[in-house]
């Protein structure tokens, strides 16, 4: 018996029905982004259920307590609007939990009712619901548009549009917007920048918030996160690097047009080439050079790629997840002579498909790529054209089991493994880790499946 035996091989077009979604809704992205602000309590403006789901899902992925509040809509609020609920909630939250800042996002419900966060927050300030020195920001995150990635991007954009000011004093820093990556990856961005001697403002920054130690204390607001001061000052930076068009570009462009901070939109630095571009751009903006220590790390990655090429060459891979990650992963795979044959993101957008086709255009065949797809479609593709390796979030485990194909968990959410909180996959070191994982999966499988005569000690 296999779990997904309900997946038929024949593919028929589906317009009205999504099966096993490869995306989720905007607010969870906004919630994750908000957790990357120091002392921030995310607030879900809608019914209780939504907030409970977002918190539980983030908890399962990060294995950390996730604090968030909700406006707890009832039938009344859904008729008369949720302004009263939000004002009341703000008041309570500031007095009970004492956050530095509340980051409000909407839900399907408050969006459809037509609640205007900007106006409600202005009113909250006027009515004295926001204590002196405290802040409140809001992002509109209707889930029937885009996906969780859109929600992330909207909240990040609100961070700059709410706080950033150009006060005509360039601060010599570079803004880096890392996009929806793990806390460990954010830490890695900071490590690389420090190696290069560049002073950066990273936002959001969930490192130190969602990968904390066991301290014997539960702290609602741990050490980490970008501060409001830093966000204000981001308008004075010498440049902004947005990692990922989908996650980060909007905020960077806002800073460019409103604060005259020039922006560069890059792919997320996963894999060799994307990390090269990241390092090079940072070098140029900050006017520094690449230190030997970093060149050394790069050399190690190139070394491992060449050493192991015989095992990566021609391996077929299916990948799914979020657009920015997939673009970089796809490029990384192609650069190692691996073949990403099926690529699915749940996030809609034709640009994504074009980009993936561009990256894979020199492969000896046409690949399958879909924006706005789901896991059911991916599984059908795999049934028609099997692969050697699966790379994506935990939702691929059904396919992995059904097709007996190794799975590397990478992306969001990971509900059944740990490590992503602590070990980066970004940058050169992260590239090494990704490659190690791929090789382990491929070689474990080879050792398991090789007949006795060809089973070898040395690989």
């Amino acid at each position, binding site marked *: *018996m296999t779990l997904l035996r309900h997946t038929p091989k024949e593919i028929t077009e589906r317009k009205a029905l999504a099966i096993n979604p490869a995306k989720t809704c905007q607010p969870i992205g906004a919630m994750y982004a908000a957790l990357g602000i120091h002392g921030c309590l995310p607030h879900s403006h809608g019914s209780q259920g*939504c907030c409970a789901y977002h918190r539980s899902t983030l908890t399962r992925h990060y294995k950390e*307590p996730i604090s968030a509040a909700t406006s707890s809509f*009832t039938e009344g609020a859904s008729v008369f609007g949720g302004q009263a609920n939000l004002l009341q909630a703000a008041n309570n939250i500031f007095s009970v939990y004492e956050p530095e800042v509340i980051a409000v996002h909407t839900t399907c419900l408050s969006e459809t009712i037509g609640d205007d966060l900007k106006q409600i927050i202005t009113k909250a300030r006027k009515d004295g619901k926001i204590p002196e020195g405290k802040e409140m920001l809001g992002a509109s995150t209707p889930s*029937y548009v885009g*996906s969780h990635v859109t929600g992330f991007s909207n909240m990040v954009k609100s961070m700059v549009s709410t706080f950033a000011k150009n006060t005509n004093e360039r601060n010599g820093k570079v803004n880096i917007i890392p996009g929806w990556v793990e806390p460990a990856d954010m830490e890695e961005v900071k490590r690389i920048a420090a190696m290069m001697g560049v002073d950066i403002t990273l936002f959001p920054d969930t490192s130190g918030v969602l990968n904390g130690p066991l301290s014997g204390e*539960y702290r609602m607001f741990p050490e980490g996160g970008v501060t409001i001061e830093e966000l204000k000052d981001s308008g004075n930076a010498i440049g902004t690097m947005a990692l990922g068009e989908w996650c980060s570009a909007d905020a960077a462009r806002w800073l460019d047009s409103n604060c005259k901070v020039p922006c560069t939109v890059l792919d997320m630095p996963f894999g060799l080439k994307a990390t090269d571009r990241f390092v090079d751009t940072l070098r140029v903006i900050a006017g520094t050079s690449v230190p030997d220590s970093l060149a050394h790390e790069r050399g190690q990655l190139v070394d491992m790629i060449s050493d192991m090429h015989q095992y990566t060459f021609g391996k077929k891979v299916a990948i799914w997840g979020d657009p920015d990650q997939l673009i970089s992963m796809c490029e990384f795979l192609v650069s190692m002579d691996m073949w990403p044959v099926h690529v699915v993101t749940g996030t809609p957008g034709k640009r994504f498909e074009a980009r993936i086709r561009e990256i894979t255009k020199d492969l000896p065949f046409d690949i399958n790529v879909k924006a706005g797809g789901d896991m059911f479609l991916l599984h059908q593709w795999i049934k028609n054209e099997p692969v050697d390796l699966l790379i994506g979030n935990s939702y691929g485990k059904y396919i992995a089991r059904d097709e007996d194909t190794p799975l590397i968990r990478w992306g969001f959410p990971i509900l059944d493994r740990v490590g992503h909180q602590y070990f980066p996959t970004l940058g050169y070191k992260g590239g090494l880790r990704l490659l190690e994982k791929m090789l382990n999966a491929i070689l474990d499988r080879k050792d398991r499946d090789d007949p006795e005569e060809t089973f070898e000690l040395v690989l």
Partner: protein
Amino acid sequence: MHGPVGCAAYTWDIRGALSSGRELHRLSFTTDLREKDIIFGGEPKLEAALMELIERHEPKAAFVYSTCIVGLIGDDLEAVCRKVADKTGIPVLPVQSEGFKGSKREGYLAACNAMFRLVGTADVSDIPELSVNIFGDFNIAGETWIIKEYLERMGLTVVASVTGDGRVDDLRRSHGASLNMVQCSGATLDLAKMIEEKYGKPHCRVSWLGIEDMADSLYKVAEFFADKDPEIMARTTELVRSELEGILPGLARYRKDLEGKKAAVYVGGAFKAFSLIKSFRHLGMEVAVVGSQTGTAEDYAELAEVTDPGTIIVDDANPLELQEFIKEKDVDVFVGGVKERPIAFKLGVGFCDHNHERKIPLEGFVGMLNFAKEVHASVMSPVWNFVPRREKRHRNAGKECSHDR
């Protein structure tokens, strides 16, 4: 799931409610409403989605869940369901479960209303007198199967289990069972009442958690059937005796280590809290902090009665308050749900999942032993030796934590 993608994505296969059937419930189906559906209505999409699904999977019935937004844009779920039912010939049942309409409780009621439409639609002539329904159990980690086995050993036929490992065909005949046993979580109490009202079949409240509640529940059921089957009491007594015999030595072993340790309990329904307090007593442990999210005033009064003086009783506490109580009482293990787990661990306190995400059965007699084993494993874990707050205490105790399997 009729709504935007999130509502369906978050509920996709997150419950360990096991099924001996087709596992279709482990897929996630949604209309993934987009902006234009919100403006122009989602009915056509829902109809097309249902037609496609029913054609492909040929289910015995379909349940359609409405989310907040559907309530708001005014899709006529009832009409779409009726239309699809006519076309496909299977029952298509709307569950009016918009989140803003109320808490989980209202959601349960919506589900009961939908299920009740199936009840009474199949022949019950072959159902024996000695028959029951298991209500309010979700077969987490296979728990319903354990209970079912006990009942069968008592000589009873289980007609339907709702909803754990439930079947549409069984539900249709569930009005034929002589007694509905309702686990006190309240989820299916409404359904039992509806059946009682329309078909005159009584219900009784039961709990399958902990030794006393488990035994009491079985005796209660046996008593109900005693005049029809004079032997049933003897069989039940024998069952309880032999089950207890199987677990008591194990419990005693765990108790040796756990004697005098303290627990905090923070669960959804109050019924669970009661069972847990008794269970911890069997392990020689004291429940120093107890609370629930949905308890009523009477529940709290009753909690105060059954707990030791000095026990902190909390009503819907926030995490900061929970932390204070846990520290104040210096508890050794915390029993709660998914959101409390990381909080307990941050504090360096053991944890036992007593919610829908538990991976081992905690119901039945064997469940009590499992519970003891899990509490023991967590409380006695050597990792607590490395937790700042506890280091001293363990050193003073002069005794290394040990595992006993």
